[in-house]
């Protein structure tokens, strides 16, 4: 069986790549992809701890996170398409109407 810290290191790398992507990307679709990477890192952690603790609950919560991620992508892409229709651009740093 796989030792727990190895899986946690892998999840940490996925999460950090997602953090970099959210901070550094301009394109809204790329920001959504980076958010998916972070959600996947959380899922890996949930399944790994569930496997370590011999409990099925971790997998249940991973399934809930996957469902919420699917809903989030649907709404997110609808907003992105609406944004493109109104502004001809999906760069997140140009969407500043509500900026203080």
């Amino acid at each position, binding site marked *: 069986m*796989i030792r727990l*810290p190895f899986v946690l290191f*892998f999840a940490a790398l996925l999460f950090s790549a997602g953090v970099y992507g959210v901070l550094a990307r301009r394109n809204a679709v790329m920001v959504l992809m980076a958010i998916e990477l972070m959600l996947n890192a959380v*899922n890996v952690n949930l399944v790994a701890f569930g496997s370590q603790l011999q409990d099925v609950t971790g997998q*249940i919560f991973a399934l*809930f996170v996957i469902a919420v*991620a*699917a809903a989030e992508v649907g709404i997110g892409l*609808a907003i992105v398409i609406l944004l493109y229709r109104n502004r001809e651009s999906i760069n997140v740093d140009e969407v500043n109407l509500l900026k203080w």
Partner: protein
Amino acid sequence: MSAQEYAFVVLAVVGSVSAISVVLARNVVHAALYLVITLLSVGGVYLLLGAEFVAWVQILIYVGAIVILFLFGLMLTKAPIGRDMLDNQNRWIGGIVGFGVFLGLVFLIQDAFRVQDSVAASTFRTTTADVGVSLFRDYVLPFEAVSFLLLAALIGAVVLARKDAEAK
């Protein structure tokens, strides 16, 4: 190291390299395809951890549905190519923060679960039946809440993306 750990290391290296390629790629379609490789290797990790149902759900929902949605989104919005068009001015700060998050997490994980002392637990095999029993016995209410959330997201996405007939 066991055979499972060797397989995990291969999957983790492939997944990590393609995850970094997702956030560094200059072409948005290439980034989506790297995301497919990352999601597939995460699914392989679920299989190695004995989470069979989650692995197939990962491949069906993520690779089958979410990446396709991303590709539709890229198709409907003109996707520019090139680092300056895709990245903003905070790239270096983002790199420092991302690397700092990684170092902090590695330090905390190493502090809490030492690699040298860690012992591999016995393989925890769950069947889809176990997941189903737990889902419908202990977590029925969250399950129904999630189905309601998906319905709301579906209707919301249709309402948002529909063209306004009376506005034009």
